[in-house]
């Protein structure tokens, strides 16, 4: 596989699964921030077309519910919010014939350029995280609701693929703010740039920052013995980390065999094979 650039900054999310209540505030914030059209009777409409909902719902952040599969008092549940992983080795980028998605900006966010996308959906097929969604329909904003569009993100047409970009416009705002304050826009302070989901989360389950910057909290968090990444052994090198003190949760983060223990630490591990 072709190598991708190494960046000095690596914008990363660390999601503490043990703190996620599954309340959905992050999804609501994401939908509003990124001008995702509210979907009337979304589920009914989608299910009636016979598609599994996850391929038809327009959402950039999905919250999965995990169970340890035990019955009675031993049972345990966890919620796992899943944005785009902004993979270090993004398979979506390699397969895109239109270069509508790329990983070439400092910080490592995988871009999605809607006007270039012609909807072949190769990227969706290649993304192991189901992070991408396709606009099967023209987005419809109930009358008046278009007045509430934010200036941040253009409205996407039917026929294009979209995905989470860590609220890239917020990175631009943060850099502008740094420039105005006479600071170095390439050395943002911890917390200066924060995606909408991370800001909204009532229980503070989502931390965000530059994992390569020792002054950012996520730098340490990603090194926690409880940290892991999803499907790490595929070699996609995600920029999204998860933390859970529960071994069964960590174990569900990858395709472990019965006999294998969960990866204790995902920071370096299986990045190379896959």
């Amino acid at each position, binding site marked *: 596989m072709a190598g991708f650039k190494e960046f000095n900054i690596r914008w990363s999310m660390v999601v503490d699964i043990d703190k996620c209540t*599954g309340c*959905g505030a992050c999804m609501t914030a994401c939908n509003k921030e990124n*001008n995702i059209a509210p979907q009337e009777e979304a589920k009914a409409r989608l299910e009636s077309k016979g598609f599994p909902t996850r391929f038809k719902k327009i959402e950039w952040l999905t919250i999965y519910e995990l169970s340890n599969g035990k019955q009675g008092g031993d049972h345990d549940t966890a919620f796992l919010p899943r944005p785009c992983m902004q993979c270090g080795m993004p398979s979506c980028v390699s397969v895109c014939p239109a270069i509508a998605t790329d990983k070439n900006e400092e910080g490592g966010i995988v871009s999605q350029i809607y006007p*270039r996308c012609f909807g072949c959906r190769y990227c969706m097929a290649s993304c192991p995280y189901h992070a991408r969604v396709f606009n099967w329909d023209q987005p419809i904003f109930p009358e008046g609701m278009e007045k509430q569009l*934010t200036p941040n993100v253009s409205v996407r*047409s039917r026929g294009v693929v979209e995905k989470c970009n860590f609220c890239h416009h917020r990175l631009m705002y943060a850099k502008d703010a740094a420039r105005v304050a006479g600071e170095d826009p390439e050395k943002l302070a911890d917390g200066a740039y924060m995606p909408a989901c991370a800001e909204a989360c009532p229980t503070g389950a989502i931390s965000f920052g530059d994992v390569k910057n020792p002054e950012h909290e996520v730098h340490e968090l990603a090194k926690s013995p409880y940290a892991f990444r999803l499907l790490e052994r595929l070699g996609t090198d995600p920029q999204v980390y998860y933390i859970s003190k529960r071994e069964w949760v960590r174990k569900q983060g990858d395709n472990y065999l019965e006999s294998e223990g969960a990866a204790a630490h995902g920071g370096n591990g299986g990045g190379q094979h896959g």
Partner: protein
Amino acid sequence: MNRRTFLTFSAGATAGLMITPIPWKLTDDASIWTQNWQWNPKVPKRAIYFAEMASKLDPSGSGVKVAVVNGNAVGVAGNVDHPLGKGAVSTMAAAEVGLLHSPARVRQPMLKTATGFKAISWDEAETILTGKLSEARGEVAMVSGDDTGSANEIFAALVNGLDGSFYMMPGETQSAHKALEMMGGEGRIAYDIENADYVLFLGADALESSGTSTRNARVFSETHPTGKAASAKYVYAGPVMNNTAVVCDQWIQAKPGAAATVALGLSRILMDNGAVANAKGFASFKQNVAQGYAPAHVERETGVRADVLKKIARELAAAKRPLVIAGSEFGQGAGARALMASLGLNVLLGQMGQSVKIIPGAPAVVQGAGSESERYAADVIPFLKGVAEGRDGAKVLMVYDANPAYGLPQTQAMAKAMDKAAYTVSFSSFMDETAERANLIMPNSMTAERYDDLYTPHGAGTATYSVNKPLVKSAFDTRTTADVMLSVASRLGMDLGYASFKDVLQAKATRLGASWSSLRQGKAWTSASASSAQLNLAPCAAPAVRAIGEGTLALAPVVKHNIGTSKVAMPPHSAGSIRDTELSGVQTVVQMNAKTARMSGVKAGETVKLMGPGGEMTAQVYVSEKVMTGVVAAPLGFGHTAWDGFSKGVGENAFKLLAAADDPETGLSVWSTNRVTIATA
């Protein structure tokens, strides 16, 4: 130009054509423009301004910042400086903007005619209401669901002036007023969760739908730093692993409505181990608790194992700043008992004035409005039942910030009351079930469009006060109800002492000693003052409320704010966050564990009928170990028959199953212990 120079020129032009980006740019443009459909809404190109506001839709009263572009509210951001928001954006706070242009909004005053609603002017609407009220003197009633606003003072003063009756919607605030009244106190119950090192939630879904949940969630976050050891232990006791239980350090399975009994069971263990309280009524409390509530008895009644109960009692006793927060699992129907029992337990733990404080209620500024606790004294359930059955007359029934035709037990009877009352007036911003049944709708502006205030929701840590001013122009021809009612009062010849609602808020700020100019900028006022009055423990040990209905399973209604509250239907931007385990297609999904499903003879995915003492509903079964044995969990918030395409006709309303029983000692109806029968449909 001769031939040679022409050749040079054209060769150059060809080379230039090869090098110039124009053809590539044109191809690129073509691909851009083929997707740049003109009917795609264009996003605004202006700067964003942020203005502070305290959310009135969010029952936890969280303060947020509203993003405004070009005079339109476009988003909601966190406000770290607000004591109840602490930088988070709850789903309901986000709905403050998400619902502004909801298709369900009532766009102007509406009058019901034989053929449906017709739009009328505000002047006409006020004239009609004034006429109706002056004819109905003595038989006017008003119901308000606003637990934090001074608008109630205007309404109560007006209704009292007409010799009518004023009711507050039931919920935690009413329960708290009643509990304090019975224990000889007055004001509000405040929980200092920030400084607690051991927090026990009994029933109360305190990180999602109970009390100041947004603030509680932030404090939970601070005490449970990612990647580090927790500085406090959080324990949840209830029938369902709900949003609170799922992140707590421990979930204890306890039957629905068990909070009071568990609290008394814990008190008994503590007192058996020598705990005493220097409090009024302690001897009688001790005696009554000693007569019942032995661990084995508590285990039978609540399902909480005796050894677990003992362990929790030990942990509570060992903690430096323990805190017990009790309530109904779904925020209503627990009456006053759960709170009284938990206050007794907190006193035994030596936490009165520490983890738990009694803080002053909002001072009244409108003459004739009565005190806060007077406004909460009457129980609306028997009144509405009476109206439905034709026993109580209400010539004019007005409803503010509430949807009693949807969000109360015995929903059908409550809806019928709206039909039976001679004249119903709704002030709802939305075409909800109550508005749909009203004779006259005078739509209130939404929070971002109106003046309003927010005083200390139930369970806040200190007294807090926020004032909202209009941040955006009203999207429709709506008005602030408090102002409308001031105008109606003056048409009736009543002088409530104020020309506008804004003046009322200013007077309130003065009474509180808060700075009006900083309040106006959205800064919250807080006060550390607390009452040192002793509470009487004698009434705390009252026997638990019996089960309601004969069904084989206990019903655990579950509230999640992304599905909606008892007032507000699912906000459009939250629609995607509804889980398959809550809604399948348009069918409500109820959850039970494998053992319960086996016992009830139902299978996963099967459509079943639930029959409760209040009514019936159909639902699909999802088998989940997140529910304790013998319990069926049903989400509240679905089954709207009004509202918009996001919620109308989606699922069924589980409120229908519930019936309320009266509890003569406290004078508050209860419905947190309903039982249901399940049958394959």
